[in-house]
């Protein structure tokens, strides 16, 4: 990632003295580079104006990013991609602002509430045990494609009531979608085809449930077909939107986060041993990986009114980019901010965002990650990264993710 300082002046644009940069975060880089860049930006200035695309503001520190999340009346989710202020798509409920937002979010939120997630935890353990058992005898794998993508996909499909084995379909679709979503123009056709595949899957699911008098039990698609918003049935279009968004928001993200967590464990035998000996630390280790290895380089919002924000003269229609990766390592908030503290207390990271759009799937994601660590370490307590080549990560245009993570281990006879 290259960024060039451009002083503090742009013709025709008041920046309130904010430094001006040109930063395109979308190219792939060596793993960890995006967090290093976020650190550098945060310690240089709390805010920048970035001349990338149409130009947008960048907030780098914890307090400002949290404030952005907590004020949807100023920072709208109409667009969440700072270089795309007028998106042609509209993710529901991701891109709906309060007060409308909660009507749609409530349709799905209880499916991903802590109690609902705990109900599927036994099945999640079974899925993880099966995947780990299949891999253990091989002595090595690409963790990203062989486990990190597969596990959340099977668990997610199970929780919403379609066959977990349909992961065979969803894994390549999600891969293809996000290959294009990060901005790689060569991947646009595959991205479109993947999106078409996902939508058609849900179209078929809806057709199979059409005309049923009562919603099926433990079946999210069926429940949505029977849902009512403002006295009107939700309808096929919104139902398809919501189901598609859940797939896109839930699977690639967990894959990305798991990859970084397991790279850390591969590189840190002392942390592996500690978690094997003290599994009650697994939840805090998962939280710490969400903080230190956040996959959200930044999150975009659209400004609804002319306002001064900590000295930045924001104008209605401007885009802003809250650098979550900078916030989560802000030394103003965290001791030893750049270290993995396995039992960290008071870990109030923004890895799941904040405010009304707090990640709907956060409870599920936590459970999946905890199950992954627990079941993996039981069977494969020691493992290492099996390459001398630098690991590469997808750019910050979508969510950060390791492309591959080759691991190896001794096979127990």
């Amino acid at each position, binding site marked *: 990632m290259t960024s060039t300082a451009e002083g503090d002046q742009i013709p025709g644009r008041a920046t309130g003295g904010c430094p001006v940069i040109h930063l395109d975060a979308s190219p792939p880089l060596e793993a960890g580079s995006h967090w290093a860049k976020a650190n550098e930006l945060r310690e240089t200035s709390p805010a920048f104006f970035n001349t990338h695309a149409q130009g947008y503001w960048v907030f780098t520190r914890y307090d400002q990013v949290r404030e952005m999340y907590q004020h949807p009346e100023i920072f709208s989710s109409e667009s969440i991609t700072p270089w795309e202020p007028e998106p042609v798509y509209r993710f529901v409920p991701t891109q709906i602002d309060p007060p409308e937002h909660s009507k749609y979010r409530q349709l799905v939120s209880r499916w991903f*509430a802590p109690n609902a997630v705990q109900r599927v935890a036994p099945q999640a353990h079974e899925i993880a045990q099966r995947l780990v058992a299949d891999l253990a005898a091989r002595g090595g794998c690409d963790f990203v494609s062989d486990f990190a993508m597969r596990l959340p996909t099977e668990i997610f499909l199970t929780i919403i009531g379609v066959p977990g084995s349909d992961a065979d379909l969803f894994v390549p679709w999600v891969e293809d979608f996000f290959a294009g979503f990060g901005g790689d123009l060569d991947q646009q056709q595959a991205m479109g085809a993947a999106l078409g595949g996902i939508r058609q899957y849900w179209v078929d699911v809806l057709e199979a449930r059409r005309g049923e008098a009562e919603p099926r039990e433990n079946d999210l698609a069926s429940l949505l077909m029977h849902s009512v918003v403002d006295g009107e049935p939700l309808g096929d279009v919104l139902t398809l939107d919501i189901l598609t968004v859940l797939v896109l928001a839930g699977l690639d993200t967990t894959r990305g986060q798991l990859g970084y967590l397991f790279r850390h464990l591969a590189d840190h035998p002392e942390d592996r041993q500690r978690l094997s000996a003290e599994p009650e630390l697994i939840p805090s280790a998962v939280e710490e990986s969400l903080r230190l290895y956040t996959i959200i380089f930044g999150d975009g919002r659209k400004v609804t009114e002319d306002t001064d924000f900590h000295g930045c003269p924001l104008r209605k229609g401007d885009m802003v980019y809250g650098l979550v990766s900078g916030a989560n390592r802000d030394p103003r908030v965290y001791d030893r901010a750049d270290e993995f503290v396995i039992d960290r207390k008071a870990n109030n990271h923004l890895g799941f965002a904040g405010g009304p759009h*707090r990640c709907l799937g956060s409870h599920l994601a936590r459970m999946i990650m905890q199950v992954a660590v627990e079941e993996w370490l039981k069977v494969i307590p020691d493992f290492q990264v099996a390459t001398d080549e630098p690991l590469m990560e997808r750019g910050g245009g979508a969510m950060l993710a390791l492309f591959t993570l080759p691991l190896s281990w001794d096979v127990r006879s």
Partner: protein
Amino acid sequence: MRLTVESGRCRGHGLCYSLAPDLLEDDDDEGYVSVRGQVIDVPEDQVGHARNAAGSCPERAIELIEN
């Protein structure tokens, strides 16, 4: 010590009741903490958990009131 959760701020992150399960619980529905808008007493043996819960809230919705 007493503890209060500002109801408009809680967004259901769920960290507080997982870190202080003997003090706080979820609302059994969407994952919000159940005591929003109330002031509760923190027993002596829960003070550490209460501090961790308050410090972990990304919304800074939990206020601790020292006696």
